């Protein structure tokens, strides 16, 4: 794994994934350089709610990106409710209101597939607890492009359906508990020296 040169991390999940995220985000220190983009399926609520919850867990700046916002290091980006979040090849985000995919908007597959196209082997994809099969296809695309694939171990996930579906379809690099995912991600990149979280 030390040989991998990862530039971005994408994370998806649904039921149970908020707890998993809360367990893994604290492993990433202030100044952790990689950008992370997160899609969680939640009932559509107040726009900033999820961001506020995640802010209390992450030592990195956390926000919903605007359309065409350039992807910068050391930032957690959260898909806004009711939009798909996509990564463009020029390393910026796009949003779309295209119809839901597998009943979901935002869709994990949409984020993962576009990020795989943009970052190829320099992407890590993480699929957490969840009650449907969104994300399995996207992780497949990340694997095909030579990226790193990680799922929360179905044995420890609150709801195992989502990671199990991915394990069935894709040769996954790591299937481990949420806290161990945090350690794995932390090792993908050393924190920058100048980096101080704001």
């Amino acid at each position, binding site marked *: 794994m030390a040989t991998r040169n990862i530039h971005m991390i994408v994370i998806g999940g649904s039921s149970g994934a908020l707890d998993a995220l809360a367990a893994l985000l604290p492993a990433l220190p202030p100044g952790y350089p990689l950008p992370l983009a997160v899609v969680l399926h939640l009932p559509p609520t107040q726009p900033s709610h999820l961001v506020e919850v995640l802010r209390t867990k992450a030592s990195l700046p956390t926000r919903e990106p605007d359309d*065409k916002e350039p992807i910068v290091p050391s930032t957690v980006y959260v898909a806004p409710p009711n939009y798909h979040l*996509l990564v463009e*090849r*020029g390393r910026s985000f796009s949003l779309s*209101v295209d119809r839901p995919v597998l009943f979901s908007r935002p869709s994990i597959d949409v984020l993962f597939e*576009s990020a795989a196209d*943009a970052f190829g082997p320099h992407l890590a994809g993480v699929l957490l607890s969840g009650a449907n099969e969104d994300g399995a296809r996207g992780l497949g695309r990340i694997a095909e492009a030579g990226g790193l694939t990680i799922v929360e171990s179905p044995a420890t996930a609150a709801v195992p359906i989502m990671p199990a579906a991915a394990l069935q379809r894709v040769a996954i690099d790591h299937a481990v508990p949420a806290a161990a995912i945090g350690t794995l991600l932390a090792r993908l990149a050393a924190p920058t020296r100048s980096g101080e979280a704001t």
Partner: protein
Amino acid sequence: MTTSPDPELSALLDAVYHRYHYDFRGYAEASLRRRIGAALTHLRCPSLAELRERVLAEPRGFSELLRFLTVQVSDLFRDPSYYRSLRERVVPYLRTYPSLKVWVAGCATGEEAYSLAIVFAEEGLLDRTLIYATDIHPESLRAAEAGVYDLERFARFSDSYRQAGGRGSLSDFYTAQYSSAILDRRLKQAILFSDHSLATDVAFAEVELVSCRNVLIYFDRPLQDRAIGILRDSVRRKGFLGLGAKETLRFSAHAEAFTELVPEDRIYQRR
């Protein structure tokens, strides 16, 4: 990382442009690719090259493709706080004008234009207002003009209407017939639907308010600049521009032409 656009995709978009004068060449690539992928599956086309041939051979093939290239998704009072802010922050200015023009750019099936018409009606402004609503998708424009929607959707629309500060009941503005809701004639009479492309046409008219929501997200940065330039040229000085909840002028070359009036609802005022 590859930044070079896929040559087969470019060839398809070039062909569509030269043959049908619809310009999708500056659309944001990630979601365009997904929709074209869906078109390949749905139209049972094995490759982009074959899709291009089919589209060139028959206009019907093109109108089928057009349905995939554009995204016809809309709601009455989508993002209620936007309409509430228009009502509370913009309408007081608009009241001072003896007559009003509004432009809804990228109106899809009409919901945004009708939502504005309802706000204007409740604020007593509709009689002096003309709303232009434009799109590039002919089928959507026809549906918009008809103003008939699934009644099923109206429970949700009524909630949004109330959150948007609606003064009465949404049912004041439509008649239910079987499973349809038919919008009121007085709303329709205030709206002129027509064809206009932010990618290929020029400024539309001089108006007091432009509402262009969830259209710019489908454009890449250079095309966004072109489109925002058109919107700017169409808003009179001290007039207003409203964008979608996640759209911003922040990355645009034209940001300087506007001030932020209601930043959280992406409502701008022309300098």
